[in-house]
């Protein structure tokens, strides 16, 4: 497969790039850490099971919508045709920090929701123009239910999940496969310093499940798997319970 990953230098994006390279996918890496991109591309290339495959990269920043077009142009030029685009990039902060820093909260909402949607729209048009493809986007279980510890971050992901579901409905027949990833807690740099809850996932395991979902075109993936059941219950708890619990 020919895959573009946005957010490829860190966290889940890195784990996905490493595993996709190991199984022989052709890759083009996007991210906002300009110094890290060539290093991550070299890593993916060293891990690549095929010989003589070059892993390309270009700067792309979710805070700058004008970077999307050129980055995707560069990806198309490098890969020829794009089969799938994976978006792992996003901002994160605890609810306490976001409440204390409205400017950062605004930035987070813009990046995680508005600009991610703009990026996905750009990708959707290009994939459909080329006859179809797969769009894999990391939303979050945080978007499934309004919850105390993730009010603002969760809202950004709720909006994103909503958008992804809609474009799945609208464009499925035309060949667009939308895969919404709803990770629970994964032990990456994003969650460093937070106490891991039960069912916390390791990046490698989660990455493997994401690649399987991408291959099959699974519309919604909860990962690690127990989070599907956890959120099934949380979504059904009455309001008076949600007001009481800390989760």
């Amino acid at each position: 497969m020919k895959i573009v990953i946005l957010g490829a230098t860190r966290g889940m994006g890195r784990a996905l790039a490493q595993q996709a390279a190991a199984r022989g996918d052709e890759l083009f890496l996007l991210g906002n850490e300009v110094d890290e991109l060539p290093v991550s591309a070299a890593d993916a290339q060293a891990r690549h099971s095929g010989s003589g495959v070059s892993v390309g990269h270009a700067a792309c920043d979710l805070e700058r919508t004008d970077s999307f077009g050129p980055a995707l142009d560069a990806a198309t030029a490098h890969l020829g045709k794009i089969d799938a685009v994976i978006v792992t990039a996003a901002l994160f902060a605890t609810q306490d920090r976001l409440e204390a820093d409205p400017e950062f909260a605004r930035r987070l909402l813009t990046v995680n929701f508005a600009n991610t949607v703009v990026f996905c729209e750009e990708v959707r048009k290009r994939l459909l123009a080329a006859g179809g493809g797969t769009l894999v986007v990391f939303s979050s279980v945080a978007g499934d239910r309004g919850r105390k510890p993730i009010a603002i971050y969760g809202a950004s992901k709720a909006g994103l999940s909503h958008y992804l579901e809609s474009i799945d409905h609208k464009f499925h027949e035309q060949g667009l496969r939308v895969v919404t990833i709803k990770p629970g807690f994964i032990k990456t740099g994003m969650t460093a310093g937070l106490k891991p809850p039960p069912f916390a996932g390791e990046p490698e395991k989660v990455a493997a499940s994401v690649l399987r979902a991408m291959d099959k075109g699974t519309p919604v993936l909860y990962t690690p798997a127990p989070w599907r059941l956890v959120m099934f219950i949380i979504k059904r708890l009455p309001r008076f319970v949600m007001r009481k619990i800390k989760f």
Partner: protein
Amino acid sequence: MTEPTLSGWGRLPAPGTENLGENLVRLSGEARLFRGLGRSYGDSSLPADATDRVIGTRLANRILSFDSETGVLRAEAGLCLRDLNLTFIQRGWFTPVTPGTQFVTLGGMVASDVHGKNHHIAGCFGAHVRALRMCLADGDIVSCSPTERADLFWGAVGGMGLLGHILEVEVQMQRISSSWIQMESERLGSLSEFLSAIQESAAQWPMTVGWIDLAATGKSRGRGLLNKGRWALPTEAPAHPPPLKKEKRLPIDLPNFALNPLTVRAFNMAYYWKQLKKKSVGVVSWEPFFYPLDAILDWNRGYGKRGFVQYQCVLPRASGVQGMQSLVERLAKLGGISPVTVIKDCGAQGQGVLSFPMEGMSLAVDMPVNAEIQSLTDRLNELVIELGGRIYLTKDRFTRPEHFAAMDRRLPAFFELRQKWDPNRRLRSAQSVRLFGDSSKG
């Protein structure tokens, strides 16, 4: 809220937390200790004080370069050995030295200067490291190698992370002829037979390791299985790559009493007799050959909540069969018998200033933590000192500083290096406080 803790593989906790991240340079400011996957058994990777800044390196796991002609690999320090193995074995390359688990990082392999089944011919991991990039105590980022800042390099090799934080490792990988192992396993009825067999086999086999039964009594004590191996030639190996084992976990802590003298004796007897033939020959996959214990992730939970340590020491060649005989007798007498007792003959001592192995015979035995663990460790250490041997810091939690100083005459040289590269002893661990007199304050 309970206080957060960190622990090593032996599960004895110390208060503290680790900071995880991909960018080690950015994280390294003010850091007192780097740790990899926390596979050292005791307190080597634990903070001296709960407020010490500890960096977990495992997210810094990129391969920076690999030369498929020469086999020279450069990677970030948090790269996991299993990741490296899965990436390169199919391409005909393997780590030059591997410990008994693949859930370790490259940085940890350097800091412990790990050894493996091929120690008698290949030495320790550090002997194959070409260069390191390190963050020193004052924040300077430097590179070192056997030719550049060689004193820093050989201090860091086996230096338990105390000379500087390891950021990147460059290592010479080893060419392998297939991903299968040609193996021969021999059952030996007594310790003396065993010891002579392991030494004799060293000349013919690049990889050897033994398991001995200390639960057996009388003449049978120390009987065991000697495993010898070499990479299979393409003509001997199956054409397909070996299958990977499905992960198994130990889902719960076994109760403390699960491993008791009776079950340990039964386990040892069953293990000894699992091979009925005197000699068994065959081709096996690399994974069970190098990493039999990795087959069950979290096997450390078998010792229950009390935790455990491993006592590993090496006795010099000069102490002979009698030396090992007396150590085994003392272990048995003091009740220090475990399901798995591993014996390995070691080649010459490496250049790492505090590197563990020396020419002779190494013995490793797991021990549950109980009321006797301190005195058991003391009694064993007294004998090891008498016999001219030393213990492995990576496994240790209970050795007394005066005992370690008496075992390792290289310690003053190591202190001199710390004086030069970290005069204020900013880098420290719970182990360096216990053994090297570092302060846990400040």
